[in-house]
C-alpha cells in the first residue's frame, strides 16, 4: 500500500509542477489549469493523509484504501476530461461560426472591391 501511495504522491506532485511550469510559460491558460491543479492537489492530499483515505474508503464501501484512491483518481480525471469536452465543443461551435462569418465578410468585401473597380472603369 505504501508503495502505491508513494507513486501517487510522486505522480500528483509531478502533475502540479508540470501544470505550474506550463502556466509560467503561458502554454496553458489559468482557467484551464484549475481543473488539473485541483485534481493534482486532491490526489496529493489523499495519498499523504492515510486517515482521510481510510475514511473515504469506508464511505465508499471499499475495503482496500488504495483501491479507493484509484477509484477517486479515475473519477477526478473523468470529471476533468468531461469539462474539457464541454470546452472543446463550445470552442468548435465558436470556431465554425467565426469561419463562416469571415468567409461571408471576405465575400462581401470582394464584391465591394469589384463594384468599386467597375465604377472606376466606367
Amino acid at each position, binding site marked *: 500500500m505504501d508503495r502505491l501511495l508513494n507513486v501517487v504522491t510522486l505522480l500528483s506532485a509531478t502533475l502540479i509542477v508540470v501544470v505550474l511550469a506550463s502556466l509560467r510559460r503561458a502554454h496553458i491558460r489559468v482557467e484551464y489549469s484549475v481543473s488539473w491543479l485541483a485534481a493534482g492537489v486532491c490526489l496529493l492530499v489523499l495519498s499523504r493523509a492515510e486517515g482521510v483515505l481510510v475514511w473515504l474508503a469506508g464511505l465508499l464501501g471499499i475495503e482496500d484504501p488504495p483501491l479507493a484512491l484509484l477509484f477517486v483518481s479515475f473519477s477526478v480525471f473523468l470529471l476533468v476530461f468531461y469539462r474539457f469536452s464541454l470546452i472543446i465543443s463550445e470552442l468548435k461551435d465558436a470556431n465554425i461560426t467565426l*469561419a*463562416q462569418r469571415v*468567409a*461571408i465578410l*471576405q*465575400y462581401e468585401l470582394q464584391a465591394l472591391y469589384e463594384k468599386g473597380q467597375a465604377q472606376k472603369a466606367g
Partner: protein
Amino acid sequence: MRRASGPDSLLIIVPAYNEEGAVGEVVWEIRQVMPEVPVLVIDDCSSDCTAVVARVAGAEVLSLPHHLGLGGCVQAGYRLAYELGYQYVIRVDGDGQHDPRDLPAIFEALRESGCEMVIGSRFLDGPEQHTSFLRGLGIRFFRLVLRPILGKPVRDPTSGFVGVNRAALEIFSRSFPLEYPEIEALVVLQRKAFRFAEVPCRVRPRRAGRSSITALKSFYYIIHVLLGVFVNVLKYDGRPRRR
C-alpha cells in the same frame, strides 16, 4: 451576388470540397437549366482549383478559411442566403450526382406545396439508382427509424438534393447539424413543426473523384446520426404538429 429581389427569389448553393473535376460542369448545367438564378459555390477550403473552376463556370464563390465539413459548409451558404434576403435555396452537390434538370420540379414544389423543405428523392420513381447494397440497407434502416418521429414516411432521408424556404432557412442559418446533416436536418425541422415533401429526381454516378465514405465511416455514420436524431427528439419543444 446581388441581393434577393421578389417574393420567389431563389439561390442555388453548391457545397464543394476538392471537386475541380466536376464542379465546373455542375455549375454550367445549372446555368443551362435556370439561367436567371444565381449559383453560389461554397468552397470548403479545397486544396485543388475548385474555386477557380467554379468562378470560370459562372458561379459566385464563398471561400471558407478552413475545412468545416459538409454541415458547416452548407450552413455558410444558408447564412449568406438568409442575410441576402433569399426566399428559397436549393442545394446541389458539387460532385455531379444530382441532375440539375430536376431543379425546376423542386422549386415548383417548394412554391406550390407550402412545405418548408422539399427533398429530391431517388426512390419515388422506379428502382433505386446508384446506391450500393450497404448504403441501401442504411437508407431502409433510417426510413424505419424516422417513420414514427416524422409522423409520415420519408423515402430518401439521406438525399442532399434539398430545397428549403425562408422559414427553414432562418432555422438552418442559426442551427444546422454539422456532420452528416441530411437526416438530422429533417428532425430539426420536425421539432419546429415544419413540413417536408419529396419529389422524384435522378441521380447519376460521380463525375470525378471518389466518395470518402468507407465501411468504418459508414458504421460511424449510423451511430452518429442515430445519436443526433435521439438528441433532437429529446429537444422537441412540444408544439402540436402542423398538417
